[in-house]
């Protein structure tokens, strides 16, 4: 049998637990051996489940090890990695959670997982110098409205109908779980200006403003898009800079 067909048969059997082991393979009895072949199936599933467990420790803690493993097992069965770079694997697991029937009542779970995914992506993002407030202060005040900004490669914006960042923060470390003080939606900014990833809750109006700036809108335009009385673009912009969300300004 040509090499490619042998490997095809092996891969098909690997993907489908109901298939018998490939007849081209054999153990010590010189015939296909289901338990031996199951070792390969198990290696694939277990290693991918471990990658999901490592990426989503808070979601795992929220639902418990057994439930999480079941959910991760269902995910890896339908979502094979597209790349050998496993540190990128599982970015779409939050979307899977959102549609996972047994987790339907845990409406906040997918958003907490989105915070975790943003954390991992920020952790592995490219290095860039964050913009300083001093650099902003040096800009001619009459041209401020025309400024545009390049966001730092690590910066991620999230919007949740649940207190996803507070739940995430309350489940850090080994200590006792802290429940959110208030059950309301949160707009979330994840940054990594240096070595450390930071997760913050944005003040009201901050999400739309930051999103407009991130998509390249000039400062004046981003400001006028905010339909929010008393919105102070200056303090929001300084907040974004201090969080390390911005790497460059363009006059």
């Amino acid at each position: 049998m040509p090499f490619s067909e042998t490997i095809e048969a092996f891969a098909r059997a690997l993907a489908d637990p109901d298939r018998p082991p490939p007849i081209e393979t054999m153990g010590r009895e010189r015939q296909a051996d289901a338990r031996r072949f199951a070792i390969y199936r198990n290696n694939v599933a277990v290693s991918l489940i471990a990658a999901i467990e490592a990426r989503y420790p808070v979601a795992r803690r929220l639902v418990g090890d057994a439930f999480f493993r079941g959910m991760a097992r269902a995910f890896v069965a339908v979502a094979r990695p597209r790349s050998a770079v496993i540190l990128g694997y599982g970015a779409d697991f939050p979307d899977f959670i959102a549609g996972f029937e047994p987790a339907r009542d845990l409406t906040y779970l997918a958003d907490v997982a989105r915070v975790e995914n943003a954390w991992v992506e920020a952790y592995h993002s490219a290095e860039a110098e964050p913009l300083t407030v001093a650099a902003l202060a040096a800009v001619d005040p009459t041209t401020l409205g025309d400024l545009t900004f390049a966001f730092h490669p690590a910066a991620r914006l999230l919007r949740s109908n649940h207190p996803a960042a507070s739940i995430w923060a309350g489940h850090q470390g080994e200590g006792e779980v802290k429940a959110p003080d208030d059950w309301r939606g949160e707009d979330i900014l994840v940054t990594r200006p240096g070595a450390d990833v930071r997760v913050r809750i944005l003040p009201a109006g901050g999400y739309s403003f930051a999103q407009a700036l991130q998509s390249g809108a000039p400062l004046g335009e981003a400001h006028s898009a905010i339909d929010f009385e008393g919105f102070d673009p200056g303090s929001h912009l300084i907040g974004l800079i201090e969080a390390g969300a911005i790497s460059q300004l363009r006059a």
Partner: protein
Amino acid sequence: MSAAQAPSPRVAPALPDRSGVGLKPEHIDEILRDRPALGFFEIHAENYMGAGGPPHRRLEAIRALYPLSLHGVGLSIGSPRPLDREHLARLAALAARYQPGLFSEHLAWSSHDEGYLNDLLPLPYTQETLATVCDHVDQVQDALGRRMLLENPSTYVVFQESTISETDFIGEIATRTGCGLLLDVSNVLVSATNHGFDALAYLDEFPLDHVGEIHLAGFAEARDDAGHLVLIDAHDSPVRERVWDLYRRVIARRGPLPTLVEWDNDVPKWPVLLDEARRVEAAMAEVVAMDSQGGRRHAIQ
């Protein structure tokens, strides 16, 4: 505890004939604090293919103190499909950045239309597969501009259609491509047990002159359909006595070599892993001492 020799960070030092361990994120703070005397650290290349961030910052700090071994797990050299050019480019960039003492990959496949399978899967040994693997090894060596080492696999099944022994297959790859070999002694015991051959005979047939590094690891146990013992290359436990025994025989024949303790799952606390590395150095020293008393290298038997 003596500090490790600090090589110039951008000159690739060859790995010393000493012990090394797989670098685990949870150990890095202690390593940077204590700077234990170790020959090298080995990393899985794919774990450092992110664009930036703490993994690279910490690896830079390790690399400033120790030689590195770059060990790929995702290139799928043993696949009938063409190598992934993007992945090869990522590997070349990583090698250029960190200047490892050596680069190694596996005689196995892991990519397919189904996606990346995240396991090291076996291939038949025939003239056709030999030509494909040699072609892939040539491409890797061209892309990286250096000699690579190819690692012998651990397998749970073999193929009806194989016409070449594993040792002949590996030896022929080394001859045709000029690549070096990574001898995983644990894999030898795992495969010998799983397929009912003699590990010592395998080592006698293995082209030891091409070996540039050794791997040692722990394994798990299972049973097959017929009730035969099957060893699983789990990298989750200490190196077993039978592997130490095979290792000493290889060192007696070949002399000291860079030797890695692989412990990738159920990773122990740092002092436990460091103790395993110390056992490697003790085993090498013991064999060298016996060798100088005996005044000759021994055949493996």
